């Protein structure tokens, strides 16, 4: 067995984990499975790409690779802007679509179907603007550094893992130690009581959209950096995202990340053992087994 698959699995898993955090948060607060979340990943990547291109055209110095990495300062700067833009996009979709449905107290199935529609529309718009041809943040080739034990990783990959780890810790602290985090947990448990306790659910909902979309954007940038950028990149991740969110336990941020890593590793293993065309089946099997054997997931509480 090739030890390299561990590294591949971890990196894919970190991206899945970041995306799954958004799924798990929207599910626990808004109580529906948001199938448009994948599009936040794609849009995040394209928004970063466009902003980075714009910055590069303003100043060529921003394109010069930073140290061992494949990208220049234009990318980190663009990511900051893209996170804000993707968060804005999520708020816009909520204002136009989910918000009005909530106001009418629409059934969960209506919300889910609406998210399907939003997913389709957002993806088509991406294809229309950027075409479906794959694009890249950088054409620079990177040498994978030996890490010992037969493991190799590029500086970009190592940075991605570090960023994912820092983000998970930060979000976990936000949820458990801050006022807005307590408010989010309160709304997730009992929205009526949260209202009585003085919590504005609308503010919490806005925070959740921004947080989920921001993380999706970063996952998209990681995917773009390590693989490629395509309009379908986020949609193709949906199955592993949901598998990770449910395996981790709905509402649990560390759970989503840990489960993301598990799904990523399992996929890498599956690809190695049975072939790349079975990648999706691995996530699907995890999803089915969790739903049958432990529906509350690793860190969820049985209801």
């Amino acid at each position: 067995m090739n030890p390299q698959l561990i590294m591949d699995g971890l990196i894919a898993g970190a991206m899945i984990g970041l995306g799954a955090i958004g799924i798990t948060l929207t599910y626990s607060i808004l109580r529906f499975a948001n199938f448009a979340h994948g599009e936040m990943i794609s849009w995040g990547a394209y928004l970063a790409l466009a902003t980075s291109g714009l910055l590069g055209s303003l100043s060529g110095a921003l394109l010069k690779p930073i140290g061992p990495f494949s990208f220049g300062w234009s990318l980190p700067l663009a990511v900051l802007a893209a996170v804000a833009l993707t968060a804005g996009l999520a708020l816009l979709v909520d204002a136009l679509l989910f918000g009005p449905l909530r106001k009418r107290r629409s059934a969960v199935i209506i919300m889910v179907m609406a998210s399907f529609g939003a997913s389709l529309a957002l993806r088509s718009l991406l294809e229309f603007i950027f075409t479906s041809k794959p694009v890249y943040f950088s054409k620079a080739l990177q040498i994978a550094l030996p890490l010992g034990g037969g493991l190799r990783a590029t500086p970009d990959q190592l940075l991605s893992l570090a960023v994912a780890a820092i983000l998970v810790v930060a979000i976990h602290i936000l949820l458990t130690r801050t006022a807005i985090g307590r408010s989010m947990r309160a709304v997730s448990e009992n929205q009526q009581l949260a209202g009585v306790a003085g919590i504005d659910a609308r503010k919490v909902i806005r925070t959740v959209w921004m947080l989920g979309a921001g993380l999706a954007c970063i996952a998209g940038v990681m995917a773009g950096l390590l693989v490629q950028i395509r309009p379908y990149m986020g949609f193709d991740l949906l199955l592993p995202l949901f598998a990770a969110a449910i395996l981790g336990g709905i509402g649990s941020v560390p759970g989503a990340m840990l489960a993301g890593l598990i799904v990523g590793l399992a996929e890498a293993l599956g690809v190695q053992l049975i072939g790349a065309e079975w990648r999706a089946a691995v996530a699907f099997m995890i999803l089915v087994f969790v739903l049958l054997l432990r529906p509350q997931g690793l860190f969820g509480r049985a209801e």
Partner: protein
Amino acid sequence: MTGPQPSALSTRALVAGYEPDLPIVRGVDFSIRSGELVIVLGPNGAGKSTFVKAIAGLVPIHSGATMLGGFDITAVPTHEKIRHGLAFVPQTENIFATMSIHDNLLLAANVLPKEKRSRRVADLYAMFPDLAARPSLRAGQLSGGQRQMLAVARALIVEPSVLILDEPSAGLSPKIVQEVFAQLKAINDTGVTIILVEQNVKAALAIADRAAILVEGQLRHEGPAATLAEDPIVAELYLGARPAGKAATP
């Protein structure tokens, strides 16, 4: 408190219900003076919970008005009502069971100015030593009586002018009921106006100033608690009591 017994909270021709064309509360004129403790009685399904939930903003109000200390709060969003001094403890699920005792209190304290928060949390721990003993315990693991204490503590943290409780004694043993009611009486004695929805009529009448009886969404009877307790017709009709000689009220 302020002025000669002004109305702390009142409703005028209040009509409220879950569905637009199905009023449950049907034209209630109710008023409580500052510092009073009034119990709201009535048979199951009379609309007691709906009435207090409408005041708290959890049930749509179809018509009529709710005034808090002379200020119209009918259209004030639910989460803003606490900032106006109205605290509500629901009948069920009145604490955040998945969160620690401490987080429940911090959450409630969040509507206060920053500099007051930790002092108020400390005040409430002093008032409820049972809670102070294990602040990191998950609230879902508390006993029934302690849950009610936490729910009351959560509501009190903002120093409300009016506290509304919906059946805080439900499911508690008689001894614990006495403790909860004694605590409520003590809170009332500090000047907090209390509206108490109760089925536990005898125990509630013992601490109340006044009682109001709600039947089929309408206010049927109002009077001082002392006289109400002795009114056999009222007791038989609305409180579920048997005529003298048979089993007493639960």
